[in-house]
């Protein structure tokens, strides 16, 4: 019974070894040049400290909105993939229609330049 969990245990051990190993070895043999920027906490390139009432560019919202739309697309494809055989050709065509509709939206968004940052 527990044997079936052996691969997972192996994976956990390998992952632990790799993560601890890479930290330890880079510390032991790596070269160190400290700068102020390198030592500050990582915040995706944003300044980590500042006013919370900052205004964000509307582009972030557009990207977030588009991400949601196309993310949802994939969510719908999971149950379809599970039922793929039973739904057969009809299900395949329905999914084709669904993707086609999103593709129209994608082409529209692309051509309108909503995917370009500047």
């Amino acid at each position: 019974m527990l044997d079936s969990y052996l691969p997972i245990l192996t994976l956990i051990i390998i992952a632990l070894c790799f993560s601890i190993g890479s930290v330890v070895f880079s510390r032991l043999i790596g070269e160190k040049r400290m700068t102020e920027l390198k030592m500050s906490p990582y915040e995706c390139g944003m300044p980590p400290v500042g006013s919370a009432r900052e205004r964000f560019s509307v582009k972030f919202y557009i990207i977030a909105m588009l991400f949601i739309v196309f993310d949802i697309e994939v969510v719908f494809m999971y149950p379809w993939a599970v039922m793929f055989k039973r739904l057969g050709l009809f299900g395949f065509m329905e999914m084709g229609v669904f993707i086609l509709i999103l593709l129209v939206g994608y082409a529209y968004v692309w051509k309108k330049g909503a995917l370009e940052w500047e």
Partner: protein
Amino acid sequence: MNDLVQNALLNVNIAAILPSLILVCFGMGLLLINVFLPRGTTRHAVWISLIGLAVTGFFVYTGWGNPQYGFNDAVAMDNFAAFFSITFLVCAALTILMSDDYLRREGYPVSEYYPLILFATAGAMWMASGTDMMTIFLGLEVMSISLYVLAGFFRGQVKSNEAGLKYFLLGAFSTGFLLYGMALIYGVSGSTRLTEIGVYLKTHASLLDNPMTLAGLVLLSTGFLFKIAAAPFHMWAPDVYEGAPTPITAFMSAGPKAAAFAAFLRVMEYCFFTLKPEWTAMLWVLAVLTMVVGNVIAIRQTNIKRMLAYSSIAHAGYVLVGMVAANEIGYSGILFYMLAYTFMNIGAFAVLVLAGKKGEDNLTLEGLSGFGFKKPFLGVAMTIFLFSLMGLPPTAGFAGKFYIFAGAIKAGYIWLAVIGVLNSAISLYYYLRVMVYMYFRDPEEDYAWVAMPGAVVVTIIIAIAGVFYLGIMPGEVMELAKQAVF
């Protein structure tokens, strides 16, 4: 599990959604064509959307008398849905016809406008043909989201922004009510199919005075009553109607309102026929309140778009009278009235489209002083539409009101009919006042800016033809409306 999939596959019936499918295809195609053409080219969009509406109308028309049910009874393209669909299509076509020149004058020749109207129309069609709570909800959302964008379409104008935001926030809130009502009814009956809910409530009579059923009924009604702008859920209408682009105001006051009535009617008649005494009593009060609020507040308005918004609230009240009557003539009267209202209201707004200057600050009573003499055709057209809105013979408004009040009297609601007629009398005051300003005041303006673009003139002529056809020969259309009700 397997049965469920089999069942779903067997019950697909594309014919049930074919007309709206075609409309959506035209909308998406248009959206794609638009981005590959330079900015500001909109003529082609007008033509393509008109062709799309015509093709859709043809398929709706050929499906008359041949009801199609599909998707496990979630969609029913029956006569009821077909009649309402024709109303939406007429409404969308007239709106599109008058829009192009207006958008150019206001400086927004943006072609996304037309696909959005097509999507809103498709959503309205799903609302009318939905026989499942989810289909109705889906249609409502497709329609509403397109309308939110359209109401705020002039993004540089503060009023249009206000309209868009207000409509969106309040609309989203009312959708919450509707959805909560659906959830409660699902909790009571274990189904979202309208007919199954009706049968379940009939066979389980103990559920009829269950608080959950009644709360669900009231919340559902609230959602629909918001969309038809019935008092006390009418507060959004004046601001949104005033701020939105004029053709969109015309569209909103006719098409989506009819869609909400269609879904409301079907839900009440399919699910809650066992609770008829309760909901007719509720709607009796709301009908009276809506008529009085709409008509009395309209008297105080000086902005014409705002006045027509309150008049639109009052007309929703008249239509609610038909629902209270809840008999064949009352229901078919609603179908007839919404078609008649489409012609007369869109006609009135088409005249306003021409009468307005850029920015539309002159669309007040004072601003129309002497308009009727300076622009005789538009003056006469406006007079006809106002007569129809008042409900004077031989116009469509008279025939519509006649059927609805006849239904109320037949059902024994004499007092309701009396209140309705009294309200029509009140409405004479503010409609006639527009005519007084148009004809009995000296013109302060030369109205030189009023151009007569062909498309808008055609809109007005079609609307006049519709008003007189439905007013002089209401029998034929009424016969069709009678075939359409349950």
